[in-house]
């Protein structure tokens, strides 16, 4: 399977994108902004189809419009970024415009399908480098702001009081989400961005409640789902996006199933801890 150039390219592209989506998605889910991420992808569709019209590579159309929309959403603040109706309207309007652009440029019907549902097996070698560069930018930016972003996400009022600008981090984060979304759309298409951005992160947060472990697990899941999905697509000849969405949903369902045995053990352990002599002020090994 790895003898084929296009397969190697596909694995590389999906690998880059999965790492970025897994990490960015963790914060997206924690902040309860998944719908905003979904909407950004749709806005990107307009950008990509618009790019066809003017003869630019669709990836740049995607990047430009998603980042612009992300910054705009962030500037409008929490009030809008979390309002479902407004986001839903923007989302459908964006898809409508995308459709209009396609109408003017009918030759690209197959391109439209690839944009909407993704086609990782058709990614060109040069694109991988672009994806890697964009991915490095988003990951570096996320790493730089992750501490105040976490603070602003879990306890906004206190963060504000401690001098963290909620709006600044909201804007920066949504710009990072926008970049990640544009990347993600290359692999699974604008309609299925949820499967790589939200699925693995939500699954990870169901399984673990630590921040570090959660991010690592989210990245690992995204990577596994993307790669296994591509391999399955190779062997079955079904679309890779189908497999990735199926794996993403399957993993979440597995994690969400009730597990009666686990919590009981955990509470037994904590009772034992309670029986021990008075707590000391020394740090606990985590």
């Amino acid at each position, binding site marked *: 399977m790895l003898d084929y150039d296009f397969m190697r390219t596909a694995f590389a592209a999906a690998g880059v994108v999965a790492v970025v989506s897994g990490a960015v998605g963790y914060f997206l889910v924690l902040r*309860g902004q998944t719908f905003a991420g979904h909407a950004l992808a749709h806005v990107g569709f307009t950008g990509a189809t618009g790019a066809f019209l003017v003869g630019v590579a669709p990836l740049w159309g995607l990047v430009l419009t998603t980042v612009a929309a992300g910054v705009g959403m962030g500037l409008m603040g929490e009030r809008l970024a979390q309002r479902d109706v407004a986001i839903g309207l923007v989302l459908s309007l964006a898809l409508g415009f995308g459709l209009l652009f396609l109408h003017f440029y009918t030759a690209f019907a197959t391109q439209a399908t690839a944009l909407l549902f993704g086609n990782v097996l058709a990614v060109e070698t040069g694109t991988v480098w672009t994806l890697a560069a964009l991915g490095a930018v988003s990951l570096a930016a996320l790493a730089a702001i992750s501490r105040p972003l976490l603070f602003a996400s879990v306890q906004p009022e206190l963060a504000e*009081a401690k001098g963290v600008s909620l709006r600044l981090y909201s804007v920066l984060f949504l710009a990072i989400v926008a970049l990640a979304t544009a990347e993600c759309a290359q692999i699974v298409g604008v309609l299925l961005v949820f499967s790589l951005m939200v699925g693995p992160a939500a699954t990870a947060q169901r399984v673990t409640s630590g*921040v570090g472990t959660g991010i690592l697990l989210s990245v690992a899941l995204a990577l596994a789902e993307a790669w296994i999905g591509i391999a399955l697509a190779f062997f079955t000849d079904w679309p890779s996006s189908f497999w990735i969405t199926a794996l993403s949903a399957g993993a979440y369902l597995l994690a969400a199933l009730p597990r009666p045995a686990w919590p009981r053990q955990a509470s037994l352990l904590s009772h034992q801890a309670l029986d021990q002599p008075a707590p000391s002020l020394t740090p606990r090994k985590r």
Partner: protein
Amino acid sequence: MSVIEFRDVHLALGGRPVLSGVDLNVGAREFVGVLGPNGAGKTTLMRAVLGLVPPSRGAIRVLGRPAARGNPAVGYMPQLRGAIASMRLSGWDFVAGVVDGHRLGLPFLGKAARAEVDRALDLVGARDLARRPLTETSGGERQRLLLAQALIGHPRLLLLDEPLISLDPHHQRAVVELARSLQGELGITVLFSAHELNPLLGALDRVLYLGRSQAALGTVDEVITGPVLSRLYGSAIDVVRVNGRIFVMSGHHDAERDDHRHDAPDGRCGSSGAHAHHA
């Protein structure tokens, strides 16, 4: 030196006055209960002390300096929000997110920072419950985690906004006692806002009562009187004392309770004071 100093402070939100011309001084190691009907400005007053609501007139000084955002010596527990209950994050990480949270970089903590988180959790007795995700904690347990967050950074002034909301009388007492003992143990100043005076009676040094853009600060005997409260409520108020409890009555109604009835979750708050209406 006073810890909080208001000089002719006017606060307004969205053009509407919340406080008009308030002067007050809160000293070191004081436990002050902040009371007043819904919308009286308890939250706004705390946010002004934090530097989040700049006064439209007058000056606020905190620990000897003008009130400004980012003062590490001020701890704050915001009025509880629902969003926390749905976060899939352990209590430990919830508290840890506050340590040096304003600094850029990765959210990984060094040894000293981890020790600080554990210390704050120990102070509120939440070390064990901090292992659980927030989704699996009760309202009272989340209050304790919020209190631990407020204690991060060794504050000298603690602003606690409605820590008793949605707690039953037993847990209310536990939280008040915890806040009072922390105040004594750490030698800090505490502002504790609440819907009702009675749960705070044993712990209070002074009361700050807000109403109709005015404020009255003093001991319970100085502030909780008919004339002072009548001025703050803008209507005739009687103060009735029964078995060491104090009821603020407007005509035949308990004014404190009536004002707050609508935001008492599932009616829990209403039961214990029902007799007051027939007093």
